[in-house]
């Protein structure tokens, strides 16, 4: 009896250990779906989320963001500013091979960065501050910027490395010219250093990747996924159905109304995290009279008391609860929490107080309120039109009669760019994770280089100078002080009416362990499975 028990235990232990061994080498195929497909395989031809996501599996940059959004080394092992504050030095990883067997060296890094700076590249804006890229030795590269650039590494997270020999031999030194319908070898063929290699691809249908057997990151990353089958499913109901029926294992872009259902279903879960995108309203405060209102001869939005009153009238928690079904993070500032410059103080928002807001309106001379048109997209952000509808009711309580004009994004965004709207909704992401990016586009007055999305017409020479100074200030402490000062002005002037940060949801099988990445970029080399 005892002996049989022991032998049974031994067998059980043996099978268990076998099981462990087999699972670790077992092929784990991941079937993955999201709304859109990658637009091109040329890693420098498009600066767009789904395109980068696919590229990140195949190609790598000198550095990358991990699943928490932190910058980690990839093809460079370390980097630092040299004695010359305009020069960054990158030490490259040695012994890395491309999928085609070519070795990765400084020549490839220099070639790739220069390729990304060419006129047909979509990544060139991120490298606008770069004056020159130089090879120091086989595994060292210097990047010289026009002025000191403390944020250079933040701009390199999606800057992929290609092999010089392979790219040149296939006549693809120039990135694909998307605007002119250009085509090159790299649009359909890949040769990266990444954890996965291309097996087959039918655009908009199906892409199959398999694990790279010679990946340098073995031991450093889990690398449990051995095959990826990627199918874009544009219709959200179909996408959720595919997850519920078990035809896919992992989906991005779970629609808000289906979250609970997907989460409740046995064997599935939904993982959430704040997204790198804040939703807010912008107001034309700069013009002396505006066309979207019913007030003649003056602009009610030019009065800071009106803007403060409107800010106070918006009940962010009600929007979170009713419109977003809890899937938002109400905020009082137009950047998400992980962006440099964010503080809890900035993100604090006023408790809605209709009486106080009305008093401020009366103070400003608008006791009877006014009417204004609100321009809103209806296919860009999560529940965008519903948020605007909620705001219409809230602002109505303080006498601001809002006429909602909700339309598709292709019609909405030109209104902001062309300064044809006086009150609008906008959402903004911060890819470099630093406030400077927001200031450049949304706070600096509109000039050829800055403020292209600043629909508020706000123009303050002192703030503009401060914004410009951020680009070259290498003293982190001084720089952060300046950032803080700009935010104080933005908040006291109530330049924008922040609503909330969007929340990202990924739906997946229960046995998948995967955190939501704030940029909505899954890096599958980090994915693990529990059996």
């Amino acid at each position, binding site marked *: 009896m005892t002996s049989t028990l022991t032998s049974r235990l031994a067998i059980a232990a043996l099978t268990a250990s076998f099981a462990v061994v087999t699972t670790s080498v077992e092929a784990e195929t991941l079937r993955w779906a999201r709304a859109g497909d990658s637009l091109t395989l040329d890693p420098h031809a498009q600066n767009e989320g789904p395109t980068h996501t696919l590229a990140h599996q195949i190609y790598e940059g000198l550095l990358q963001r991990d699943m928490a959004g932190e910058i980690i080394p990839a093809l460079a092992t370390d980097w630092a500013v040299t004695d010359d504050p305009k020069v960054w030095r990158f030490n490259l990883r040695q012994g890395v091979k491309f999928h085609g067997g070519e070795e990765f060296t400084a020549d490839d890094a220099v070639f790739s960065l220069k390729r990304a700076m060419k006129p047909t590249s979509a990544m060139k*804006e991120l490298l606008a501050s770069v004056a020159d890229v130089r090879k120091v030795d086989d595994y060292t590269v210097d990047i010289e910027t026009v002025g000191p650039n403390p944020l250079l590494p933040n701009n390199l997270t999606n800057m992929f490395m290609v092999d010089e020999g392979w790219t040149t031999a296939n006549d693809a030194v120039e990135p694909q010219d998307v*605007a002119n319908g250009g085509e090159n070898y790299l649009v359909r063929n890949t040769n990266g250093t990444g954890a996965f290699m291309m097996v087959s691809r039918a655009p908009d249908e199906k892409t199959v990747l398999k694990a790279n057997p010679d990946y340098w990151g073995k031991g450093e990353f889990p690398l449990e996924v051995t095959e990826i089958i990627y199918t874009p499913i544009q219709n959200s109901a*179909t996408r959720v159905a595919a997850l519920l*029926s078990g*035809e896919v294992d992992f989906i991005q872009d779970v629609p808000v109304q289906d979250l609970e259902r997907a989460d409740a279903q046995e064997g599935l879960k939904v993982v959430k995290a704040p997204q790198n995108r804040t939703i807010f309203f912008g107001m034309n405060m700069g013009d002396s009279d505006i066309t979207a209102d019913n007030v003649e001869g003056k602009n009610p939005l030019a009065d800071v008391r009106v803007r403060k009153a409107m800010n106070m009238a918006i009940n962010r928690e009600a929007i979170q609860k009713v419109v977003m079904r809890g899937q938002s993070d109400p905020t009082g500032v137009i950047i998400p929490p992980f962006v440099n410059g964010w503080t809890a103080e900035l993100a604090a928002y006023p408790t809605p107080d209709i009486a106080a807001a009305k008093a401020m309106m009366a103070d400003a001379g608008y006791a009877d309120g006014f009417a204004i048109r609100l321009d809103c997209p209806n296919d860009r952000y999560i529940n965008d039109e519903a948020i605007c509808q909620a705001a219409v009711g809230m602002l109505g309580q303080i006498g601001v009669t809002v006429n909602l004009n909700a339309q598709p994004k*292709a019609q909405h965004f*030109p209104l902001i760019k062309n300064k044809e709207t006086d009150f609008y909704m906008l959402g903004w992401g911060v890819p470099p994770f630093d406030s400077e990016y927001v200031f450049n*586009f949304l706070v600096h007055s509109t000039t050829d280089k800055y403020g292209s999305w600043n629909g508020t017409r706000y123009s303050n020479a002192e703030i503009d100078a401060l914004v410009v100074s951020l680009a070259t200030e290498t003293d982190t402490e001084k720089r952060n002080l300046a950032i803080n000062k700009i935010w104080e002005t933005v908040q006291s002037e109530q330049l924008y009416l922040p609503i909330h940060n969007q929340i990202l949801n990924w739906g997946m099988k229960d046995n998948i362990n995967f955190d939501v990445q704030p940029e909505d970029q899954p890096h599958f080399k980090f994915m693990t499975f529990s059996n």
Partner: protein
Amino acid sequence: MLAFVIRRVLQALGVLLVVGFISFCMFQFMGDPVEGLLGQEATEEQRRELIERLGLEDPIPVQFVRFVGNAVQGDFGLSYRLARPVSELILERLPATLELAFVSAIIAMALGIVLGVFTAINRSGFAANFIMTASLIGVSLPTFLIGILLIYVFSVQLGWLPSFGRGETVEFFGWRSNLGSWDGLRSILLPAITLGLYQMTLIMRLVRAEMLEVLRQDYIRFARARGLSERAVNFGHALKNTLVPVVTVTGLQLGSIIAFAIVTESVFQWPGVGFLFIRSVEFVDVPVMAAYLLLIGALFVVINLIVDLLYFVIDPRLRSDRAGSH
């Protein structure tokens, strides 16, 4: 005959031009493709450059004439979204749509005729009444709802059929087909039923009405009196005489099956031309939209032309008119 054909072809070309011009005017209200092409970080200078290159600042008639001029030479321009020649994109996706339309037409015909005959013969039976009532669903529910309903039942609840995509495809002489593999057949079933349901009910009701009409006729009574079997009477004599209008209607419906595949394709992520069109609308991809609308316009025009020619063949009065004018 030749003059008639030439006249009809010229009329058809006129229709196509009008379709093209109207759609071109509508595109102006769809928004600005430049935003989508350049992204939020583009500078003013890049915007100006792109607008100039795409010729978007020219007046609509100028853009239209340029489009027609190129289209006549078979050049439909480049897709803004995918940066590839539009004709290539459409040709690549057309087989998927045609196959889906073909399979759904077959299903609609087969089921429609069988059920139509059944309900006509067993007019007052419980099953027939049930089928007639249930067929109202096919007529009254919108396609996307039927699609989602089918996905819910057959994919999510029962897990029998895939909910999206084409599955495995097999290539025959460069034509990627779903009909060559088990997985492909499983994948095409739900979208084909969704697309064909309306046509099926239509054919069923048409066959039923025609059958009821025919079954009342004397020759059926005589056939019965001669002691022919029920099967021979119903299928050999009655059904044959109901098929002429059915074939006409099915032919005409084929055009709308292809054109209205848009909804079905986007519900089932079917990589056909309709799905391409929907994506293009979201992106304001004018060249693709224009080419697609022209294609659908041409399809309808061609089908109508064929029908007109058939009438010409069938109806002797059309011919004698012409002969009389000599």
